[in-house]
């Protein structure tokens, strides 16, 4: 009798547990890509840099104008996160969220578990993603091609403003992501990237 009751209880517990899981079934991991996100800037080459950042929101998968609902933003070769504090350049948005970033060395497919101890945020000292060729996400070839190319094997791992995770592989900095870009002919400051977004809070795995 006791045995039967416990059995019934177990069934019930399992049933409700499963029900609960069904109710909050995990959201699918988002695999997507963005083409030609335009990130213009003014100044540069020794002059002060200015211009609005092109903001991007992982949750909607869209670029946005919102002063708060954004995760990462682009201007020229600079990529900022909505976390930390402003470097103080002209037209730089205030940080309102808790976004962070680190760079994973390896392949996009192999970057499977986020290491939360590695995140950095922007600060008045500099951006979390270092600027300059070879320091962050890109390599500047200098003469004779003057091309800016995403450094292969650099995966940007983001924490979004609200604590979710995403990984990004930047593919191109030129409009139309041409197979053989020409720094003199192709328009630059157009980002094309692949990304994977884990919409489930606290889940550090992408698979």
């Amino acid at each position, binding site marked *: 009798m006791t045995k039967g009751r416990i059995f019934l209880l177990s069934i019930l517990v399992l049933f409700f547990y499963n029900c609960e899981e069904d109710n909050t079934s995990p959201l699918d991991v988002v695999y997507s890509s963005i083409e030609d996100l335009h990130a213009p800037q003014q100044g540069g080459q020794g002059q002060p840099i200015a211009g609005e950042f092109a903001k991007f929101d992982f949750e909607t998968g869209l670029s946005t104008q919102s002063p708060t609902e954004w995760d990462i933003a682009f201007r020229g070769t600079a990529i900022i996160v909505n976390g930390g504090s402003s470097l103080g350049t002209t037209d730089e948005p205030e940080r309102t969220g808790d976004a962070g970033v680190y760079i994973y060395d390896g392949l996009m497919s192999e970057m499977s578990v986020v290491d939360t101890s590695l995140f950095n945020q922007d600060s008045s000292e*500099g951006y979390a993603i270092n600027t300059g060729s070879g320091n962050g996400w890109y390599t500047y070839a200098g003469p004779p091609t003057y091309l800016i190319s*995403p*450094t292969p094997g650099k995966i940007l791992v983001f924490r979004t403003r609200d604590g979710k995770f995403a990984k990004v592989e930047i593919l191109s900095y030129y409009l139309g992501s041409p197979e053989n870009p020409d720094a003199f002919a192709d328009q630059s400051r157009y980002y094309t990237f692949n990304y994977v977004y884990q919409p489930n809070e606290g889940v550090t795995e992408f698979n």
Partner: protein
Amino acid sequence: MNSSIIKKKDIEKTNASRLSDVINEELGLITVSDFGGGEGIQMQGLDSQYTLILIDNQPIIGRSAGTLDLDRISVGNIKQVEIVRGASSSLYGNEALAGVINIITDEPKKGFNGSLSSSYETHNTLDNNISLSFSNKNFKSTFFINRYSSDGYDLNQNDELNTVNKFRNSTLQLKLGYQINKNFDIKLNSRYFSQSIDNIASDLLSGESFTAEDNINLSVTHKSKKINTDLDIYFTSFYGDEYLDDDNGERFSESFYDQILFKPEIKSIYSLNKMDNIVLGFGFKHESLNRTYFDINPKQNSPFAYFQYDYHPNEKINLIFGGRFDKFEEYKSQISPKFSGRYRIDDSNSLKLSLGYGFKAPDFRQLYFNFSNTSVGYSVIGYNVINSVINQLIEEGQIANIIIPLSDFNTPLKPESSLSINIGYDRIFNDYISIKSNLFVNSTKNLIDYRVIANKTNGQNVFSYYNINNVSTYGLEVETKFKADNNFDISFGYQLLYAFDIDARRLFEKGEVYARENPSSPAFRLKKSDYFGLYNRSRHMGVLKINYTNPEKNFSSNFRLKYRSKYGLYDSNSNNYLDIYDDFVKGYITANFSFNKNLKKNFIVSSGIENIFNYKDPNNIQNLSGRILYLKLKYRIN
């Protein structure tokens, strides 16, 4: 020792006018253009800064960017060029990690002699030589003057710049010798070179680039039955300045470079017997440099001493033990041991081995440079002035963040050092065919490179020098000669070369280097075998030379081919290393033909074609102008 000699008659056959022309026809040696257009030598896969260039045993200076421009040296008065490959000679200097090129100038024959020559080439290139010499029992003198000028050429018509700008240069050399008595003689060698090159940076900016070089050597020799002693007092200076004016005639930029070297040295050769001898020498080097972009005028005093023991235990074996000691103010004193040996198995077979350790102290630029590019905004700082310059930049608010902590620069920059091994086998098959082969390994430690040490607020970087790479170059040289008779011979040479950054190869091995199929596809992992090696190194090089002389009809002609296989100039796929997915400069062949005819006893007419196939690669190869035709007249006085 792995050494070879290019004789005057071989140089004359090819009608070469500059040292770079001569070097480029040698197996395993190529000249590589630097950014300033200078032609530096690459030997056994090592860069030009590791080859010591000497004229009459004395070093030439003036490497403003590390390269010594071989176009500076006229070959009109050269008796022979001696080439030592590998760090195996202890007599000339520690920095010769790759080797030594010693240019020996003409010694006068008895009586009064001389020659006049004039050569006219494509690109309005004019090469005029006058050489006069006089010698009697006690007195010797030679006088040489060369004037070389050219309109230059332009490989890329789409921009306003010329590939090689219009230039003119002059070389003057005077050598005097006097035998005081049976035991004493005294010599004075002096050489002066000056060059001016049009400096055109754009259609609005133009100016001039000027260089002048002096070499003076006073040498006193004492000869006795057993001991010969030389006292050499050598002074050389290299001066360069360049400027650009804008279209209003206002000065836009200006820079100068002023280097001197003073080197007294005593060398004694003690003959133990007919074959064996001991060489002992010591001396002192004083170097100073004053140039734009230096906050201080660095000086370096370095005493040195060396010895060499040339030993022949029997007819078959020759052993040379040597060593060199160099003392520096800022660096640990260095001892560089050397050994070379030859074993003659029989009349037609011999084995050679040489081992040498060499090192190169950081140059003034690597220590004291303080340069900020005005148009792009990056900075380059010498290792020893980092603290003061960075602090100044911080005060000026120019530094965004420091990547390499300044405390990392408290230990001095280490000298680059190299171990070189050459193993040779020579065989004479018969009267017609002979073969020479040589395996070489150069292992270089603490190679100096530059890296980013800080980010600037303008988004650019601050660079400085550091010891990083361990580089290994190894390969094989084979030279075959077929001599039908005194009038016809063919030689063929081949070099196989592997040149790697060992640390980079390890990263490939560990799978930490990535590439993309095309610039906008996802990355993939590279294998060890995908690593191509160092930039500007060709795996295969070949030289073919055919000489034909017709004594009855008084003419000679020769044909030379040089092949260089593909090589990479830069990393085109952004992973910092040269891998097989990068863009390469295509392999190519250049062919030269020359013809010399004696019209009368003392009158020679020469003509020829260089780069017969008109090979050009405007984007990658600046020193190949396309086909060149020339006509040369020479008159001998005696």
